[in-house]
């Protein structure tokens, strides 16, 4: 933890986005995480994505649980709304907040411990409801905050810092999400912003639950030899499938001359995501083949990254419920509280 705060002075010619803000306007407080923590790098990617999308911080709500990862919303988008919930309960808070005000953008930040152990049930149900939010699962294979115990995402046989091997097989959050019907699933690496930033932008523009499983090394407790979530191991074993190239609503498509097939999917808000397949055998819109592809490479120890699965015609929670467009706080009192007579009529239905 640094003793000084990051000085406000910056490069005088810093680019400004469409709403006139610089990247520095997307910062939060100074991080108190360990130097070199992958989570800080993910925060930087989040700031970059919101900056590039020109979303004003006050249009965003940040929610999180408990863990080093869950601390990070303090370190980005200082001007956003936020709620730091109890361990594993972020999905409920997000669901409730989203139900009350669908005008805000929701970003949930969680860890592998927070989401896959204590919060697994909540995680599953937020997916099932298709809450319109970006769910960042900052995955380091350990409980960082409580000093590095294996989490449920740790690979079987991977070594703890002191050398003990993990005895259990891992939960793969991406596979789990796809099988639960998640409508947008991606995986990336904190140490590769070129891929992470466009993926975050695409996920933000998705209508419905978008899960990003980000391998985000715990530099203090899980970056040693024998770890399968270290910087070096992740770089060696990453296998990119589909590179998501986010194209804004009004932006020109700049065709990149690169190998592989290129196609586009149009997101709910009219923006497009260009999908460049690095591996031709992979189809990110086909659930069954996606699952088997990920399974196949997982067995060989590879970390499949990219936009793994996307369902264009996703219906989020509000469409299913038919709820009001406005935030509840904007509804007139009579509508929010139709009165005793209305209550009686409702109760009469079950008599």
């Amino acid at each position, binding site marked *: *933890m*640094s*003793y*000084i705060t*990051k*000085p*406000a*002075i*910056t*490069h*005088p*010619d*810093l*680019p400004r986005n469409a709403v006139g803000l610089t*990247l*520095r306007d997307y910062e939060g407080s100074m*991080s108190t995480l*360990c*130097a*070199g*923590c*992958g989570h*800080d*790098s993910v*925060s*930087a990617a989040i700031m970059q994505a919101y900056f590039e999308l020109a979303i004003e911080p006050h249009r965003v709500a940040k929610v999180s649980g408990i863990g080093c990862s869950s601390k990070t919303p303090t370190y980005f988008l200082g001007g956003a709304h936020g709620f730091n919930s109890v361990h594993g309960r972020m999905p409920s808070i997000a669901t409730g907040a989203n139900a009350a005000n669908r005008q805000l953008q929701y970003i949930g930040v969680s860890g592998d411990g927070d989401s896959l152990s204590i919060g697994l049930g909540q995680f599953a149900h937020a997916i099932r409801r298709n809450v319109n939010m970006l769910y960042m699962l900052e995955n380091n294979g350990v409980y960082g905050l409580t000093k590095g115990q294996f989490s449920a995402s740790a690979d079987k046989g991977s070594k703890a810092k002191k050398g003990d091997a993990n005895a259990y097989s891992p939960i793969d959050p991406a596979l789990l999400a796809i099988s639960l019907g998640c409508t947008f699933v991606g995986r990336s690496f*904190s*140490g590769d*912003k070129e891929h992470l930033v466009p993926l975050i932008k695409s996920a933000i523009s998705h209508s419905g639950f978008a899960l990003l499983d980000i391998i985000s*090394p715990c*530099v*203090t407790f899980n*970056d040693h030899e024998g770890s399968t979530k270290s*910087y*070096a191991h992740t*770089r060696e074993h990453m296998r990119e499938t589909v590179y998501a190239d986010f194209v804004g609503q009004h932006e020109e498509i700049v065709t990149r001359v690169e190998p592989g097939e290129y196609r586009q999917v149009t997101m709910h808000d009219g923006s497009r995501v260009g999908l460049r397949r690095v591996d031709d055998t992979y189809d990110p819109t086909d659930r069954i083949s996606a699952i088997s592809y990920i399974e196949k490479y997982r067995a060989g120890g590879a970390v499949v990254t990219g936009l793994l699965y996307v369902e264009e015609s996703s219906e989020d929670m509000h469409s299913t419920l038919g709820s009001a467009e406005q935030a509840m706080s904007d509804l007139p009192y009579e509508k929010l509280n139709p009165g005793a007579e209305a209550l009686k009529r409702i109760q009469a239905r079950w008599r």
Partner: protein
Amino acid sequence: MKPTNSSDPDHFHRVVDCQWGCPAHTDVPRYIRQIAQGDFTGAYLENRKSNVFPGVLGRVCDRPCEPACRRGRLDETPVAICRLKRVAADLSDDIRDKLPPKGPSNGKRIACVGAGCASLTVANDLLPLGYDITIFEQHDKPGGLMRTNIPSFRLPAEVLDDEINLIVERGVDLRLNTAVTSMTELLDEGFDAVFVGTGAPRGKDLELPGRHDSDRIHIGIDWLESVAFDHTEEIGENVLIIGVGNTAMDCCRSALRLGGKNVSVLARKPRGWFKASAWELEDAEEEDVSILINHSPKAFIVEDGVLKGMTFDKLHYDITDNNKLSKPQVLEEVFLPCDDVILAIGQDNAFPWIERDIGMRFNQYDAPDVDEVTHGVEVPGVFFGGDSAFGPKNIIWAVEHGHRAAISIHKYCAGEDITERPARGMNLLSTKMGIHEWSYSNDFDDSERRQMRHVELTERFKNIRIEVELGFDPEQTAREVERCLNCDVQTVFSAKDCIECDACMDVCPVYCLTITDNCDEADLRTRLRAPASNAEQILFVSDALPQTGKVMVKDENLCIHCGLCAERCPTGAWDMRKSQLIIPYATDKEGRCQLTTG
């Protein structure tokens, strides 16, 4: 790009913009830290090492360090480097016992012609080595233009006397009122080497109709000299100063103190094309001098031997797209009445006392051809420095010339090749004190530049000797020192330790750091996190990083040396290390040029 060779002393030297910009390479951030710690004597000595006249320069230096200062690119105003130098000089203890005494005589005799700052520096550097030094000066006081031309309201005589005495009293044979009239004769006196520091003594004249019809038309530097020696004590109420350089500023402000009421400075060109330093203009305008632009002098109007005024062509310029002036267009002729005119349009070298048949080559400006490194000329053992070498510059350049010439003289007397120069060196020392603690003040202080306090306008004209600037008070000093970014505390990178977690590039407040694929410089500059459009500022490029083979690139332009990159680095790949440039001087104990004789 090739990986940067940061073991080349120039690499880190360039990062310290002020020091790189200073002709004498004064270690500015170091002395600013010494002031911050209350070590004014240390700060004075640090200055004196390279610039010899800190009290003088803390007041009147041309301060090329300030436009170079990194702080100026970040929040518009540079650190008040020069003002802080004066703080060190004002508050330093007597340092006499800290200077090396004249060494035991080595039997070599050196003649210096002229007692200006260049010659005095040569004496300062050679005295401890045991040389017998004779300075010949035509005037009855030493100091050169520092005494005769820089007015005492900018530079009090006591300050000048003090710093000259620090040199002379250690055993220089200073011969005042002794003009050297013949180089041949001087060489015949058997000196082992001769240093010429006679300055650029001839003020330019303006041959226009009426020029020689009145005695109220003065040449600026001659007029200032006669003011300095109290030969001139008054001037008419209406004064026109021709030219808008620093000499003009001294002339107009001096005129105001000798009875001038309406003093105007006439410039041929518009503002922005003036030669005077911004601060000198500011000080003159504060004193209500009017500066008239686009006036080209035409004639002196003298009636019955009395100067009535001058006529000028009023000009118009267009400014071209690339910010150049078009050829002027004459709008009208105007007449400006006056009692005196002072011509302040430049100086030339003049060497009437050097015979042209002694084997010294003179160039098209009738000045000797002087070698820029050794300061030698065709005649072995003769060296030039200061304004006499390459035309009028300033004090700090003259001092640097003096240092270089002293090295040459020392080598020459030892029979060594003077073209082989001692090399500069560089020391690096980590400033790490704890996990996130450094031995320098790394937090950015957003204070604005402190403004110099001046003597009230109602007071300052009473006597030409009243120094206008009051210096910084303790509160101003305490603030200003914190504005310095400590650019000498360098970000030193070790590629083999980098795990590419991006922490440093994410935390950097000014986005100087980027990890990217390597390519040529032009391309690389387009790939950096923030615009890297200042091509004068270097890029650091690391060796290939172990995990991906990419490189770490740092654009040095706007780094605020906050150390956050090093604080956020988990592996210690970045460290904040204080660089100290080792500048060779003639006096260096370990210097390569050691005299064996005497």
